[in-house]
């Protein structure tokens, strides 16, 4: 089958196109228009938040790590931002920086626990998440702080039918792609995720690479927090982490063809993954699909997608035959 030839990223964009097409048709049959400005706006709006989280998540997953604390980090960041700004337009920059700093520190903590204490990232980041939750619930008894209107623009204004937040997300995605391609640290993330021993033997500073990935992931979550603050007009603790955003992000990353075991994939794919989820969301909304049915469909779609990627991987691992006559044996795969 010719799909085999296709490079994974391309395949995912093909899938995205497919989802858009099918969605469009479905909506059309339903008597609507998926591509009306309103729906486009809606679609893009939904990409930004998951987008920010998924971008960061891509980096850690590439390094064969994981970050289950991003939801909590985002919540924390939104709090820090809102309380620092506290309605004063002159403190916007300060607030934003503070939020990013804090989020970065959380990332650093994750990275340190994973790479230096050797705690499995699943547990490490889960624990850090709990710690943040505890802090927030104790410190703030609800939404706090006030975001000046000027900064709320980040959450509400758009250029034509594309929200600014989405543009920022895409810009960061582009930056991320560039980072992975053009900087040593970024490039080394593939090595660390691929085979940490080989990476170390080749002189890659594995620990600091892993740290960087986690710090950046934290900061991306920070940006997500800023978006939340901008859209809420205040900092919200309970909200951000009561919705398992981290799982959404991971789903988007995996949907984007990045291998959960690290070393393969990239941000281009993740963006497609995010878009797919957003398109589905919008389609479901426009078609008035029962909220619970959404979960079912999402779950099914994610599994199917990954199963397809896995299939492609399998077909790759066949050994190159010496005796073509026996090509049949090539697909038996090895235990």
């Amino acid at each position, binding site marked *: 089958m010719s799909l085999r030839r296709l490079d994974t990223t391309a395949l995912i964009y093909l899938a995205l196109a497919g989802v858009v097409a099918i969605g469009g048709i479905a909506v059309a049959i339903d008597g609507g228009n998926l591509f009306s400005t309103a729906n486009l*706006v809606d679609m893009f709006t939904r990409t930004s938040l998951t987008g920010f989280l998924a971008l960061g998540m891509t980096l850690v997953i590439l390094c064969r790590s994981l970050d289950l604390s991003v939801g909590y980090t985002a919540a924390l960041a939104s709090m820090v931002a809102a309380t620092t700004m506290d309605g004063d337009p002159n403190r916007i920059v300060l607030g934003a920086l503070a939020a990013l700093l804090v989020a970065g520190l959380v990332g650093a903590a994750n990275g340190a626990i994973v790479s230096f204490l050797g705690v499995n990232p699943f547990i490490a980041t889960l624990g850090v998440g709990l710690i943040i939750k505890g802090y927030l619930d104790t410190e703030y008894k609800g939404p706090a702080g006030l975001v000046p209107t000027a900064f709320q623009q980040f959450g509400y204004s758009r250029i034509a039918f594309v929200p600014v937040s989405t543009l920022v997300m895409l810009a960061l*995605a582009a930056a991320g792609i560039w980072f992975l391609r053009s900087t040593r640290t970024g490039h080394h993330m593939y090595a660390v995720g691929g085979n940490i021993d080989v990476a170390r033997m080749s002189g890659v500073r594995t620990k600091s690479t892993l740290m960087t990935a986690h710090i950046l992931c934290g900061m991306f979550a920070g940006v997500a927090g800023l978006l939340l603050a901008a859209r809420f007009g205040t900092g919200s603790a309970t909200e951000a982490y009561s919705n398992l955003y981290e799982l959404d992000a991971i789903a988007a990353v995996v949907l984007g063809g990045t291998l959960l075991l690290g070393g393969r994939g990239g941000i281009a794919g993740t963006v497609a993954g995010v878009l797919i989820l957003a398109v589905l969301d919008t389609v479901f909304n426009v078609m008035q699909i029962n909220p619970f049915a959404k979960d079912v469909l999402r779950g099914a779609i994610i599994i199917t997608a990954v199963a397809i990627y896995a299939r492609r991987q399998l077909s790759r691992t066949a050994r190159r035959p010496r005796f073509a006559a026996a090509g049949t044996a090539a697909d038996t795969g090895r235990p």
Partner: protein
Amino acid sequence: MQTTRLALASAAAVGLLLAVGCTTDEIPEAETTEEATASTEEEWFVQADYEEQLAQRDIEPEGDPTTPWLQAIEPEWVDTSEYAVDGGDHTVCFSNASVSNPWRVTGWITMQQQVEVLQEAGEIGEFLHSDAADDDEKQISDIQAFIDSGECDALLISPSTTATLTPAVEAACESGIPVVVFDRGVNTDCAVTFIHPIGGYAFGADAAEFLVDNLEPGSTVLALRILPGVDVLEHRWAAAQEIFADSELEILGNEFTGGDAAEIKNIVTQYLQRGEVDGIWMDAGDGAVAAIEAFEDAGQPYPVMTGEDELSFMRKWKETGMTALAPVYSNFQWRTPVLAATMILNGEQVPKEWVLPQEPITEAELDDYLERNEDMPSLHYAKFGGEDLPGFPDAWRDR
């Protein structure tokens, strides 16, 4: 390579869009700021609101007591002629925070039933709704989507969190379509009407006063709460604290249970291991039965208890004959918004702030309510107020 191409593409797109020109969903300044700052205070207790709500409990609401969902306490009627639209079959849109708990599920069914009636009557044409599954961010998108779609003649909003939804609701008001907010409020009065029962303070106070009246001085009370940070719930606890403060009762502690029955039973059991618990104060009925069972299993006498008008609790209450009260956060309020919307679209007057009656169910009324809801499921709410709707009882019974 794929990646670079994407980078370039996105860059190009940005440029293009900049050329196309920039729009913003307006975010009005004025009333937000000082109102919102009110919400930024971390203490949930606002003396004025507290006193107002306590007072409201004793005010006779206007309107026919047989249709409490149309009653209003001290309404300040506003003219809505500007929103009047000729003809019927209006498209009404509803952005729902979620149906993630039985109270909301019950209400949501009631609302749908009410809508059907109005559709029969030709008042409402299409009824579009979106569910944000408790995700504020998602609800903001949902509201925007409704505004942008331009299909809605009226927009009903049940905000998932007061403070965070404020900007979105303001944006909705700006769009010119009449906005009806109900249940949890927002920090702006831009909506045509804000519909809600008396409120959290009253709920918490009803419960707390009942305990104070029915327990000996010096008795111990355990407070069970669902989760922190949700204003309607925090107000209940704040009011309770007020009242407990000038009572002789000893508050053993206040625990967050997430409304999870197992968690509740664990906590109560552990408290019982360490000593007597004479009273239980709950900020919502979810899992109340589990709390009572904890006493049974520990072989302890039933506590004096306040739950909610959730049937499982009321039936247990009846069955055990314990001293209890079912404070009510009037579930029938889910009928009002749709009705309000049609009134507005017909240019009829509506209360600016539509305060619905909110009376706890006492021992005296217990049998009556149990009988009225006899074949309702256990997680149904007694004061759902849909008995006169055509779908009754099947719609609520077979979900």
